């Protein structure tokens, strides 16, 4: 019989017909956890952490096949906090990168392509993570952001487009201006408005 642990505690369960799947197990556990705004966060099978375990091909597997299954839970608040940390880290990284790139451009160094890519990737991650946080928050009824960040996305995308254009026509002054006076200012304003408390 398979040993099933929930956050390290052995669970007592019944699987008489040996037809319960991992999906059934997770569903049953999360049903219990929902009032506490918790959910299953990690799945370990026979000592191995499973990545992408919410995929159908994992969830449809029968429990009886395994020696041991461990479920690790977390609260929505913890996840939200982690998500927020990630967003803040990205924003800080991008602000540092922007300052660096601006200094390079202003002092005549054109070799900033790599840093510009990092800024673009970072901005994409910010938008993606904030979207996930909003979705999660809506599902669990949590107000993660002080103000809805969605209206800030469009200007970010717009700046990225302007930067791409300035870069492609070699307008390094405009690039520096867009980064320093528009994007950076926008990110700082967004930070002030959407985060409840900040430790920047």
């Amino acid at each position: 019989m398979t040993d099933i642990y929930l956050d390290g505690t052995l669970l007592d369960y019944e699987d008489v017909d040996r037809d319960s799947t991992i999906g059934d197990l997770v569903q049953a556990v999360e049903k219990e956890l929902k009032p506490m705004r918790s959910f299953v966060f990690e799945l370990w099978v026979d000592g191995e952490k499973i990545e992408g375990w919410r995929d159908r091909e994992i969830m449809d597997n029968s429990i009886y096949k395994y020696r041991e299954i461990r479920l690790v839970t977390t609260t929505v608040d913890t996840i939200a906090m982690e998500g927020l940390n990630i967003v803040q880290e990205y924003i800080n990284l991008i602000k540092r990168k922007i300052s660096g790139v601006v200094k390079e451009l202003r002092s005549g160094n054109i070799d900033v392509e790599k840093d510009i890519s990092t800024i673009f990737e970072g901005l994409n991650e910010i938008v993606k993570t904030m979207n996930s946080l909003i979705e999660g928050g809506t599902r669990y009824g949590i107000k993660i952001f002080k103000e809805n960040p969605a209206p800030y996305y469009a200007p970010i995308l717009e700046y990225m487009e302007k930067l791409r254009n300035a870069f492609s026509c070699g307008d390094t002054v405009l690039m520096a201006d867009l980064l320093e006076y528009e994007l950076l200012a926008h990110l700082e304003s967004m930070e002030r408005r959407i985060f409840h408390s900040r430790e920047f």
Partner: protein
Amino acid sequence: MNILEKNLKAIAKKNKELSERLKREDIKAVEIERTKSGDFTFRYRGRYFHSIYDPWKEIAIQTEEILSKDSDWVLLFGMGCAYLLRALVREGKKKIIVYEPSLEILKGVLENIDISDILSEDHVYLFCDMNTFINTVRTSTEGLDDLLTYQPLPYRVTFPEEVKEFLNKIQNVHIINMTGLVTEISSRFSWLSNYFSNLPFFQKYPPVDTLRGRFRDIPLIIVGAGPSLKKNAHLLRDIKGKALIIAAATAYRPLVRYGVVPDFVISAEKTDLPAYFTYGEEDRRIRLLLGEISHPNMFKRDTKGKFVYFNGFVELSIKQAKFWGSDYLALAGGSVTTTALDMGIMLGCNPIVFIGQDLAFGEGTTHADGCVYVDQNIVLDTKKNEVHIRERHIADTKSYTVSFKLLWLKGVNGRPVPSKYDWVTFHKWFEDYMRELNKEKASVKVINATEGGAYIEGMEHTTLKEVIDNFIVSSKPVEEIIQEAESSRPPIDYDGLSGSFNDMEKDIKRIQRLATDILKEARSMKRTVERKGMSLELQKNLARIKRLEERLFDKTRYVSFIWEALSEYTFELKKYLRDTIDDEEERFKKDIDTMVHSYTAIRDVCGKLVPLIDEGKDTIRRLKPVEGREYRKVALTGH
């Protein structure tokens, strides 16, 4: 007066041509925009050149970068709205030469921003033309100066080729200046000494301007000793007597190998060049064109004849050429082929054709076969931009390796060709000379028929065969013209020469006495500092020295060639002035030492010049014909 007029007035004081060009209405000025900070910016070819928010903030970064590097001159590519220029002047960097590649930008800026105050600074220059810019860099900066080039990023992105040219040309002229300094130091006293030794020959041989205008519209071929000579030198065999041929001394032996004996061989070397001659019958068929500062032995060579020419860069010649019956002072760009060009114009020749004027490395060689450099091995290290030449002088048994910085010139084939500092110097001179010549004497055709090497802007480029087919058709009385000139030398003003030497001697002796007095004061000051430290007593010495110096410098105005003799010491002085010593007393002691050193040099050089001038006076006395006799016999033994 509007802003543009105010700016143009300031520009006109130093660069009238630019000021006039900017008045033209067909120049479409760039549109100047206001920034959010209330300053100015503009867009050119789709790019902003200054921040649209706060241009001064970006300028602060650039200024800091420039100021962090020690430099005597800042050479800016691009003026933009002149923020950087203003910031640098404000920070005390006042020796700035600006090259603005776009008249449209310049006009837009000058119409909107008043920069007349900075443009009026003594050492701030503005150019929109690369050649005048480079010439100003050449003449305003010195070989010892540190030059800092700066090109703001928008200019680099917008004008990449022009920036490349800007940097390459600055590097080249800076090397020319450094080389000039070395030549000054190593040659000036020898030149003076040779001049005095050559006085008897100036009487014996006519000045070159006895030939003035006698070769009107006769073609002149000037032969350099470049590696490409092998491609076309043989063609000269058929044109002897149809054109005048002047060969550089280095090209003479290679030409003889091709069966060509030139009419003239030109030289101005301060050292003797025995290895450049054949010692055969060819030597007796040529005439030498010798600079007044050539080694005396060159005047003693067994040749068909000799002509003397006086150089415009020798102070003594400027003073005395007229007394020798010459009113032609040759222009020279460091090589005798440059002088030959100037001479060709004076002779009336047309067209003037160059061959063997490569000014660049050939395949594994620097000169034509048959030259004095043998067993050459040339390694071009393009990564380090260096060239290493291992070679043996024909009169030597050992080989030597010399290394130079590799420089690049545009080739006749359009591609860059490797060159070195001296050739680049000559090349620059040719292009400058041609620019003026084409303006002033457009009817004179100058053709570079060198079949390889560097392209020379302002000259036509073709093959020697084409030149011969088109211009060298009939026989010319070359020999007769020369003989006629030889027998018609202008009279010599012996009294003028004697008077000139007497005045010189008087002034030199006076300078020598003043230098000795200054030395006494300086030594007394040194003793005072050592005994009492920095005291008020020193002020009296300083006041006396100042008075003596004023008199000394006043005297040198009349014998300016003394500075030529002193070039080595002035170089040392310049080096000293660049040192920084913080401690006041130490600095003062060092000042005194330098003063002692400098005035000792002046006193000693005067001591060396006085006997030379004495000898010169004596020579003139001996040379002066006695009443009733045309010339007195003089033993030409040299000195």
